[in-house]
């Protein structure tokens, strides 16, 4: 993949905290640190996978980047503009150039609106095409996501989950976005439909060249679709790098355990040995030191004290662990 010099998206030290503020300081509850000092970049046309357990802050991060959710501090440079401190005009530009695909294909569509109308609305609001060409463009978009233009007259209730997800993608594409955030967009679909949607996204990426932040917990799909992958644990990125490197040579014990936990389809191989035990600690009370140390099989005494380790490494593949990359294999 050819990569241009300047990144499309550059997130620096992004924090998203919930609660913990009150007019009277003594009444302030605990702070939920959903996203904790996350920095990442996305190049134009690149697909970045964001993986991690539920509650690791992947969705919160995705929503904060699109400015749908709140953020506490940090910088979100989109095409050179800091969207964390966006003016109304900046925000309008962000909305015109980004889109989101949701997990629940039905929930993402207005049940009272016909599919064609939902897509036409985007074209009309953003004045993408002249009024008399809207119908043709809607048909074109539906064809692009593999739906017959006759579906324009259907309501979401009449469609299957996979069809609804295609409509959701068509609506996102109507914006002609530079960046799409896909939040668990295949998790609610049947496995066979998942494959279709992933193939569709790969095909569209080739044709349109938008960047995708692909939030998922299914590692096999991420490996197939993404150029790079970022592994999140309790609001922090613990490892980031080119997908193949991360998958074949993980540099963080958490990534290693995640990869070993992928069940094999071959019944002779049995289930993965010594899987990751326990639950992640509560983001309301993060442990000192590395947040992963209570569950880490390789934890050293110094892991439980001080600041959490920062992302280190040579080249694009970096991990937040004090152990050298060769020693994390369990």
């Amino acid at each position: 993949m050819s990569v241009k010099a300047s990144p499309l998206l550059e997130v620096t030290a992004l924090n998203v905290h919930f609660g913990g503020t009150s007019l009277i300081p003594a009444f302030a509850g605990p702070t939920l640190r959903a996203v904790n000092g996350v920095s990442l970049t996305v190049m134009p046309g690149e697909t970045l996978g964001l993986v991690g357990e539920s509650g690791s802050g992947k969705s919160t991060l995705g929503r904060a980047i699109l400015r749908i959710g709140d953020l506490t501090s940090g910088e979100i440079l989109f095409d050179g503009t800091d969207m964390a401190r966006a003016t109304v005009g900046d925000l309008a530009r962000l909305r015109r150039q980004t889109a989101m695909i949701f997990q629940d294909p039905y929930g993402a569509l207005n049940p009272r609106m016909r599919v064609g109308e939902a897509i036409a609305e985007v074209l009309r609001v953003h004045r993408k095409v002249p009024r008399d060409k809207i119908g043709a463009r809607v048909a074109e978009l539906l064809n692009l996501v593999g739906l017959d233009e006759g579906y324009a007259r259907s309501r979401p209730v009449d469609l299957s989950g996979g069809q609804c997800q295609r409509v959701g993608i068509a609506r996102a594409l109507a914006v002609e976005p530079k960046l799409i955030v896909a939040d668990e967009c295949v998790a609610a679909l049947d496995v066979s439909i998942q494959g279709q949607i992933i193939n569709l996204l790969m095909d569209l990426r080739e044709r349109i060249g938008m960047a995708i932040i692909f939030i998922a917990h299914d590692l096999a799909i991420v490996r197939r679709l993404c150029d790079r992958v970022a592994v999140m644990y309790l609001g922090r990125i613990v490892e980031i790098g080119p997908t193949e490197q991360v998958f074949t040579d993980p540099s963080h014990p958490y990534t290693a355990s995640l990869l070993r936990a992928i069940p094999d389809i071959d019944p002779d191989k049995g289930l993965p040995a010594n899987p990751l035990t326990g639950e992640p600690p509560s983001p309301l009370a993060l442990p000192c030191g590395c947040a992963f140390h209570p569950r880490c099989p390789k934890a050293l005494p110094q892991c439980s004290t001080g600041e959490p380790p920062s992302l280190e490494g040579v080249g694009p593949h970096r991990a937040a662990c004090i152990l050298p990359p060769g020693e994390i294999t369990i």
Partner: protein
Amino acid sequence: MTAILRTGTGRTGFRLSFGGGPLPLYLGGAIILGWFVLALLAPVVAPYDPIYQDVAARLQPPSLAHWFGTDNFGRDILSRVIWSARIDLQIALFGVVFPFIIGTVLGSCAGYFGGWIDTILMRIIDVVLAFPFLVLMMAIIVILKPGLSSFYVAMALVGWVSYARLVRAQILVIKSSDFVVAATSLGYSHSRIMFRHLLPNAILGSVVFSMSDAVLVLLNGAAISYLGLGVQPPTAEWGIMIAEGQSFITSAWWITTFPGIAIVTLAMGFSLLADGLGEKLGVRE
């Protein structure tokens, strides 16, 4: 989505079902339509002038000449019941429409924008609800001037709170759903999100509620007229007719019974329509 819309329809606690079909809808619609046609054709179908006093034919029981009998002024009950439909349908309509509009607008603003708008509005609603409904209505009507238009004003001032609470609750639920988040992420304006995405999904419960509310408004209108604060005599209205006939209830049962039956049938029509509508809209989702 299904669950949300269904809660709006299950409000009566019981459900009439006739083989699962939308029979209540048609039955209720037919009853209301029947009364509407009767009201419209009152000058044609009513056998007598509703306020003409035939002193010679006072307190006559139902007969071939007077099917529903006559009252203590010799007025034909059947004609008065038919003419009353004009007033009472009007009461049901205006007594619902104004609260519906005011409540929906204020409730959706409170639910969508939240913050201080929501806080202030909810406190106002608390204040209105703190007063007994009928007493507050009577107070407003007495301050204005007894009559039908004062009744509508009072109804609008008091009745909007139920709609506002209903719509606000629905908006709060729908606001966090993905399609509204999607609309925000696509850069739609507040008014577009409100009118195109939130309200069409939030208003269903209110529409169904407005039908059963029509029953309450109708009974309220009758009660207010009964108390002498609504429609003024000699105009024919079911509430007034019952009020006037009550002193003869032991000797001339027909004076109060027939307008009473009229109220019950129209109220049942609205009730059935509400149930059928709720069921139909619930099923369609």
